């Protein structure tokens, strides 16, 4: 029993945190900065707890819930993402002060849900976890204050989300019918035999649709641009970093369990992957709003992750995990800069970056490193991630896929360079004051830059961890 408790410790902890903030949200008035400070503390402890529990292994709840290195790695990533987002929620002007408590409450709930997501191995559990995380996001997105032009975001996100989840549920029901079980492991064992009959196929595709919706892979990406653009910067950052982790983990686990899945499945993944990369990068070229641009780039990056996943072997999953890790860091670096610059919570346009290198060289450098990382320029983490992913794909014989990926990387470099150009080159229209950054942010930017370079240059131990995690999948 005690052992089980240890296994469940991170989730339990975050439940407590959520409850605390639920209580706080009932209060009439509360100091935003105090809320943030406490939330930060809680998240920090949560991170420590998660790290502490990272070596646990075992099954819970009648084998619906699997705790292994894979899930724990992702839980660490989730906790870290949450911690970072809360860290830079210090100026949460995008959301009405009265709702801050709820904001943190929902964020903890969502983190909890996603933690459950990454270790649940049973369809109902997965479904419940997905819904839980989605619901909290549905509520976080429309929280944005005085943003009339974005008021539609919430409802769009909601509608797409529920549709997708309905499709997924229907798919799950069919899978259940086809395989008479809801345990993914058993389903997978039975599935290859059933690829003949439509029921299984339809079920699988519909179920995958729900997962891809979380990861925002083409064509289930349609919510992403609007949501990224329409919700408060912090929320966007949260969706772009933490929830991406969960989605990636979900898909990795699902396809990892589908060992020996049919050739069609792989082809399907390839198609999706190429489409996502190409679509995301092409459309990103013409964006003016940075958050929307990053939305499209995130679609492309989902494609890159898929490239690792579709290798369907240990190295591939390891690559994908590493990629997710790198993506978390780089993407957060970019968003942190954005949140700092747009500290009044408005939507940042690319041209507003003009003269950033004067206003705050450090932030400019962080942004540049982050973007170069996303573009896959060595020696940043992004390059190593791409390298591993391509290596996995080529090892499976998809040389052309790697070439397509690299061409896409070149295309993506174009719009990243446009942003960098704005930050380093353009003269601002009117002289803007220097951005003052507290020493924490200062430290954080340095840490992020260091981390990106370190991940890129000394990937050895991380690669080992990811490979161990990938092994723990089977």
């Amino acid at each position, binding site marked *: 029993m005690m052992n089980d408790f240890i296994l469940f410790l991170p989730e339990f902890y975050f439940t407590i945190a959520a409850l605390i903030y639920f209580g706080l949200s009932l209060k009439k008035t509360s100091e935003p900065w105090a809320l943030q400070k406490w939330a930060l503390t809680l998240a920090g402890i949560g991170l420590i707890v998660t790290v502490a529990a990272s070596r646990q292994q075992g099954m819970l709840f009648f084998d619906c819930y699997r705790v292994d290195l894979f899930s724990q790695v992702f839980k660490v990533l989730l906790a870290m993402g949450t911690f970072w987002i809360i860290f830079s929620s210090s100026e949460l002007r995008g959301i009405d002060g009265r709702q801050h408590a709820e904001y943190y409450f929902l964020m903890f709930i969502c983190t909890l849900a996603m933690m459950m997501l990454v270790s649940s191995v049973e369809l109902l559990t997965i479904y419940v976890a997905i819904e839980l995380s989605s619901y909290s996001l549905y509520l976080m997105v429309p929280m944005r204050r005085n943003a009339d032009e974005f008021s539609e975001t919430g409802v769009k996100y909601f509608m797409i989300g529920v549709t997708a989840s309905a*499709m997924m549920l229907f798919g799950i029901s069919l899978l259940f019918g086809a395989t008479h079980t809801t345990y993914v492991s058993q389903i997978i064992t039975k599935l290859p035999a059933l690829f003949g009959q439509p029921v299984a196929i*339809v079920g699988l595709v519909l179920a995958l*649709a729900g997962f891809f919706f979380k990861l925002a892979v083409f064509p289930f990406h349609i919510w992403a*641009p609007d949501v990224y653009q329409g919700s408060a910067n912090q929320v966007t950052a949260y969706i772009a970093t933490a929830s991406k982790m969960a989605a990636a983990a979900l898909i990795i686990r699902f396809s990892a369990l589908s060992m020996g899945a049919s050739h069609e499945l792989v082809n399907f993944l390839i198609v999706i992957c190429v489409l996502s990369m190409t679509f995301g990068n092409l459309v990103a070229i*013409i964006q003016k709003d940075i958050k929307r641009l990053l939305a499209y780039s995130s679609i492309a990056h989902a494609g890159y992750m898929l490239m690792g996943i579709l290798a369907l072997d240990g190295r591939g999953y390891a690559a994908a995990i590493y990629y997710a890790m790198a993506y978390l860091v780089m993407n957060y670096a970019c968003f942190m800069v954005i949140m700092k610059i747009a500290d009044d919570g408005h939507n940042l346009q690319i041209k507003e970056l003009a003269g950033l290198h004067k206003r705050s060289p450090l932030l400019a450098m962080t942004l540049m490193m982050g973007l170069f990382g996303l573009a896959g320029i060595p020696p940043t983490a992004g390059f190593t991630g791409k390298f591993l992913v391509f290596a996995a794909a080529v090892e499976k014989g998809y040389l052309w896929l790697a070439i397509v990926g690299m061409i896409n990387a070149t295309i993506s470099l174009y719009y990243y360079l446009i942003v960098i150009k704005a930050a380093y080159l353009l003269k601002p229209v009117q002289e803007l004051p220097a951005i003052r950054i507290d020493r924490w942010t200062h430290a954080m930017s340095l840490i992020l830059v260091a981390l990106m370079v370190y991940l890129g240059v000394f990937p050895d131990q991380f690669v080992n961890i990811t490979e161990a995690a990938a092994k723990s999948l089977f």
Partner: protein
Amino acid sequence: MDAIFKDPVLLATVVGTSLPFLSMAVILIFTRHNPMLSSRISVTSIVVAAVCALLNLAKVAGASHPFRFETAWMSSGNFHLTFGYYLDPLSALMLTIVAVIACLVQIYSLGYMSGDPGYSRYYAFQSLFAWAMMNMVIASTLLQLFIFWELVGLASYMLIGFYYEKFSASQAGKKAFVMTRVGDVGFFLGIIILTLGFGNLGIPDLNNAPGTGTITTGFITMAALLVFCGVVGKSAQFPLITWLPDAMEGPTPVSALLHSATMVAAGVYVFSRIFPFFAASPNAMLIALAIGTVTMLLASTMAMTTYDLKQVWAYSTVSQLGMMVMSLAAGGYFAGVFHLTTHAGFKALLFLCSGIFIHEYHTNDMRVIGKQGGRKQLVPMICITVGALALSGVPPFSGFFSKEAILGALNAQANPIWLFAGLFGAFLTAYYSFRLIFHLLFPKGGIEEKHAVHEMDSHGHKEEHHGGLFWAMAVPVMILACVTVVLGFAEHSLQGYIMAGGGAVKHASTAATGGAAHGVVGHELLVILGISAGLVGIILAWFEYGRKGASRNGFLSYFPPVWKLFDARWYMDAFFRWFLDTAIYSGLTSIFTRNDRRIIDGGIDGICFFTETGGRLFSFMQSGMLQYNLLIMVLVAGLAMLFFIV
């Protein structure tokens, strides 16, 4: 290293040939702002060089076999190149000629160039030139020779374009460099082919190669002709004649240096240098002979129409070079070399004399000079006449002997046409050179004393006449005049000197002097013909320009088209210009440039544009209308199902 000090010959060679380079370096780096010092440095170094050259001349005479010093320079794979000196009678003689002429010219320049803003630069380039030239002469391998040959070209480019503010000057320099480059590429290719086919570029080895029979005649012909391209370029043979007259844009001493003994003679020198190799291929010799002849005649005709002193000498240089090539090609090895020697003397003399006139009267037009009383300048007037006499082959001047030798060589050819061509050339030469002399001596309508101007600038020169500068110019001229007078009588000693030990050469030349063993005409007759050809030319010139009430315009002026043809250099320049403009500039270049901008670059930009447009198109997929997006999503899911089921 210490080997250098052991061997006096080597020591002399090293010192003599490297001092000019040092002086150049010193001048360029340190003493640019001190003209006097620069000139002193340069002159001393060249004097030393000349002395060393003379020493070597003597040494080589004594030696039984040629001196050869070599040291590894570079090696790549199985291709090895040595840097070295090869001193045999020929190179020793040539070295002496070069050093002496360069020396005299530099001394002369002390006067001529005095007060020029680019004084230091001038001497730096002079030294560079002397250095390159001397090293070329004594190079031990063909490639080393080529290297310094190129440097000679470079130095002459600098010297010809010395007055670089003048567009024509820089143009002429460029023209000289590029046109000789055309030939050099052939030369270069020839060297490469020799490397690949024969593998050894040592000059004596090349000369002995035909005997050993390691290489086929066809190969020899090809290589020889390619090398001959270089000769054509440097020695301004047909069709690459026209750069040389333009090269007169340089200061007169430069013309004297370049066009008497050194740069342009380099081509002929190379020819004689590997003469046995050439001789092994009758076809190559024949072609060379033809080219030499054509060159000589064309150049002489051109010389008949111009009124520019230096131009006349330039053309005559070309024609004389043609002469030498002819004689070499006809197997007259010694004759060619001997004419090279004598020509060096009297052509330098002629140029330097005209230099004095030009310096005095600030014009190149012979008529003007004559009008302004050119004949009053006794020293140059006498000397120039001596030179002209030598040039037109009048005994007892040096030119006479060498020309006779050449005619002898031509005479030995089976086909008499070459001999007659040679005689005709001699006639033309005599004609145009005395046309010039008479222009100076008996100007049209006598001398008009333009007191105001003339007084003043003659007054300006008054000091000079007695000052050192004038003598700096006069002395070298006199020396050369004496040389011109006496050199001819040294023919036989020289012959003995050159032919000594040159077994291959002897053999080759006897082999090459084709069919008619006893010649077309007898020896005595030949001498008479030779002299008479010259005299006829002089007399004709006298009738047209010299005698009282002469018409003062040549018989050519009765045939305007011909005159025009000659005056326009047989339209060769026009042809080159046309070729350059149409084929290169407005042809390939513009096409390629457009291709670069439009097709290649345009293609790249097109791809980028295409990508961006693709982005715009795809972005329509993200319509604002929620349900369209949902529709897409559902459709793709449906397609995926079909993809699986089907």
